[in-house]
C-alpha cells in the first residue's frame, strides 16, 4: 500500500471449496504496474482459483485480493473496472462476428468510443487475419478464438490484465507474437498476472515467476534472479516437494 506502484496484491489468500479441498493456502504476492508475474504449477495447483478470486467469481475463505488497493470481495465492481480478463478457453458468442463480439464486450467494459477501425487494428495486433474479422466465431479455431479473447482484454484498456493460460491453443508463431504483445502492454504500464504451463516463454517475458503446488506459492523469484538458473530443473524440483527457501 505504501508502494503506490502495486496494482495487484494477494494477501494470505486461502480458499477451501465446499468439498473441503484446500485449493489455496496462504498465498501472497504483489504485481506492480509495468510488471509481468507468471504463475507456474501443476494442474490443480490453484492458479485458476487465484484468478477467480481477483474477479470475485468466488470469495476467499481467508485473506484478501486487492486491485489498486480495493479488496475484491468487498467492492467487486470497482475492482473489476480495473481488471481485464483472458480465460483459458475463450468461447465468446459463436453467432456473432469477431467485430460484434469485440464491440459488445468493449461497451460492457465501459468503452463506448471505439470505431470499427479500432477493432480491426486490435485484431490485427493480436494476429487475427483480416478476412476473419467479419466472420462468425462459430467457424473459428481455438487459437483464433483465443486471439479474440486477448483483443477483448486489450480493448478494455484496464490497468491490470489477468490471463489464465492464454497461450493454450496458440501455434508457435502466434505464441511468440503474443509474448511480444505482452511485452508492449507491460511497457504501457499494465500490471500483468498470468498463469501458464509454458516455462520457457514465462522465463523469457516475466519480471517475476511464482511456482504453485497444492495451493501454496512454493517459490517466487525475479527474472534477474532466474536468469542464471535452469528454470525447468527448478520447477521439477519444486514439484517434487522442495519447499520455500528461507
Amino acid at each position: 500500500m505504501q508502494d503506490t506502484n502495486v496494482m495487484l496484491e494477494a494477501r494470505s489468500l486461502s480458499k477451501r471449496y465446499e468439498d473441503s479441498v484446500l485449493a489455496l493456502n496462504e498465498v501472497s504476492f504483489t504485481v506492480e504496474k509495468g510488471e509481468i508475474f507468471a504463475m507456474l504449477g501443476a494442474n490443480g495447483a490453484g492458479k485458476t482459483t487465484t484468478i477467480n478470486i481477483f474477479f470475485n467469481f468466488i470469495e476467499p475463505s481467508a485473506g484478501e485480493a486487492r486491485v489498486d488497493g480495493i479488496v475484491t470481495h468487498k467492492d467487486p465492481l470497482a475492482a473489476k473496472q480495473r481488471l481485464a480478463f483472458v480465460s483459458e478457453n475463450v468461447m465468446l458468442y459463436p453467432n456473432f462476428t469477431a467485430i460484434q463480439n469485440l464491440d459488445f464486450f468493449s461497451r460492457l467494459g465501459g468503452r463506448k468510443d471505439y470505431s470499427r477501425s479500432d477493432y480491426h487494428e486490435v485484431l490485427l495486433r493480436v494476429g487475427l487475419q483480416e478476412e476473419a474479422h467479419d466472420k462468425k466465431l462459430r467457424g473459428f479455431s481455438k487459437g483464433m478464438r483465443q486471439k479474440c479473447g486477448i483483443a477483448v482484454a486489450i480493448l478494455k484498456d484496464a490497468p491490470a490484465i489477468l490471463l489464465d493460460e492464454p497461450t493454450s491453443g496458440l501455434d508457435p508463431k502466434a505464441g511468440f507474437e503474443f509474448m511480444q504483445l505482452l511485452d508492449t502492454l507491460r511497457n504501457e504500464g499494465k500490471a500483468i498476472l498470468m498463469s501458464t504451463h509454458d516455462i520457457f516463454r514465462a522465463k523469457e517475458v516475466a519480471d517475476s515467476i511464482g511456482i504453485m503446488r497444492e495451493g501454496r506459492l512454493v517459490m517466487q523469484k525475479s527474472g534477474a534472479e532466474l536468469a542464471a538458473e535452469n528454470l525447468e530443473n527448478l520447477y521439477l524440483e519444486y514439484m517434487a516437494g522442495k519447499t520455500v527457501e528461507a
Partner: protein
Amino acid sequence: MFKIIIENELRAILYSPKFVATFATCSLLMLLSVFVGIQEYRASVRQYEASLSLADQQLQEASSYSGVNMRTYRAPDPMQVFVSGVQNDIGRFSDINASEALKLTNSVYSDDPIFAIFRFIDFTFIVQVVLSLFAILFTFDAINGERERGTLKLIFSNAVSRAEYVLSKSIGAWLGLLAPLAIPVLLSLMLVSLFKIQLQPEHWMRLAILLAAAVLFFTFFVFLGVLISTLTRHSSVSFMLLLVSWVALVLIVPRAAVMAAGQIVPVPSIAEIEGREDGFAKSQWRTYEQQLAKRWQQRNGEMAGLSPADRQAYRDEHLWQWMEQDDAARTEIQEEINAFRTKLNEDLRNRKAELQRSAFTLSRLSPASAFQLTAMNLAGTNIDLKSRYEDSMASYRSELIAYGRRKQKESGTTGGIRITIDSEAGLNISTGRDKGTLDFSDMPRFQPPRRSLAQATAPAVVDLGLLALYSLLALAGAFVRFLRYDVR
C-alpha cells in the same frame, strides 16, 4: 449497461440460426389459423343469413299461428375467428315450436366429425401451445448457456451487477421474442379487415384484452425459461426440466384440476339420478297403493251391514266421489314425484356449476388455463355459450307460444283441422285458413343473447392479474436465484 445487454440479447436472438425457422413457422401457423377462422366465420354468417330468409319463407307457407316452427340459429360472432372455444362442439340451431322441447343440434363437429379429430387450430391454441414452446426454445439456456460458453465469466469480469444483468437479459429475451411476433399478429388483423369482417369497437376492445393476455402468457414462459436456466448448471438439464414443466402446465394441470374438482365436488351420474328418481317414484306409488287399499277397505266397511241392493245404491251414490278422491291422491303423488325430480335436477345443475367453478379455479394454477379461460370468456365461446343460447331460446319459445295463442284468439281460428261437435249444428269439420294469408309481421323475432363488454371482460381481470403475477414470480425467482449463481 441495460441498453448494451438488451441490445446484445436482441442481436443474439435475431442471429440465432433457429430463429428464422421457428419464427416463420409460428407466423405461418398464425396466419393460416386466422385465415381458416375467417373462412369458417364467413360460412356461418352466410348460413345464418340464409336461415333468416328461410324462416320468412316458412312463415309464408305456415297454415296456423300456433303450428309455426322457427328454426333458430346461433348468431356468429367475429371473435370466434380467434377463439373457437366450445363453439364447434355445441349445436348450431334448434327448432323452436310449441310441441317440441328446444334442443341445440348439428354442431360443426357432429356434422363433420373429421374436424373433431384434428380440431381447428385457432389463435388461442397457437399462443397456448406453439408460442409457449417457442419461448422455451429460446430461453432454456439463457443463463446456463452463457455459463457453458464461458461468456458469463467474461461478462462478469466487467463491472456488471448481477441484478442489472439478469433483469436486462430477461427483458432483452422478452423483447427479442415478442417484437417479431407483432408482425404475424398485425398481419392477421389485416387479414381480418381485408376479408371485411365487421368488427365493432367493442370487438376491438375484446381483441386488445385478448392480445394483452397472450402477451402476459408468453411473458410467463419467457421468464420461466430464464428462471429454470438459473436453477441449473447445464442447458441440457434445463431443457428437459422446461419440457416437463411445459407438459405439466399446459397439458396436465388443467385436466388434473377437472379431476381433482370431481373428487372435491361429487356430481351424481345421470344413472344415479334416474335411480333415485325411480326409487322415489316406486315408494310413492307403493304408498299410494297402500292408501288406496285402505280406502277401499274403509269403503267396504261402510257398506258392511247393507243388503246387496242397498250396497249397489250406496256404491252408485258414492262412486263419483270416490273416483275423485282417488284421482286427487294420484295427482298429488304425481306432483310430489315431479317436484322431487325438479329438485334432483336443480341439485345436479348446482353441483355441476360448483364443479365447474372449482375446476376452473384449480386449473388457473396453470397459466395455460388462465389464458384459455380468459380468451374464451372474451370471445364468448366459453362454457356458458350453450346455456346462454338455451336460455334465450327458451324465453323466445315462450314468447312464440304466447304469440301464437294470442293471434289465434284474435283471428278466431286454429290451424289444421278443426272438429266441433255441436248439439244443434251437429258435426262440423273446418280447415285452417289458406296458406299465406296469415299475418306474421308482428311476430317476435329471436334476439341472440347479448353479453355486455363488462360481462366478457370482468373474468379477464382476474386472469390477467394471475398471468401477471405468475410472470412476476418467475422473474423474481430468476432474479433471486441469479444473485447467488456461480458464473464459473
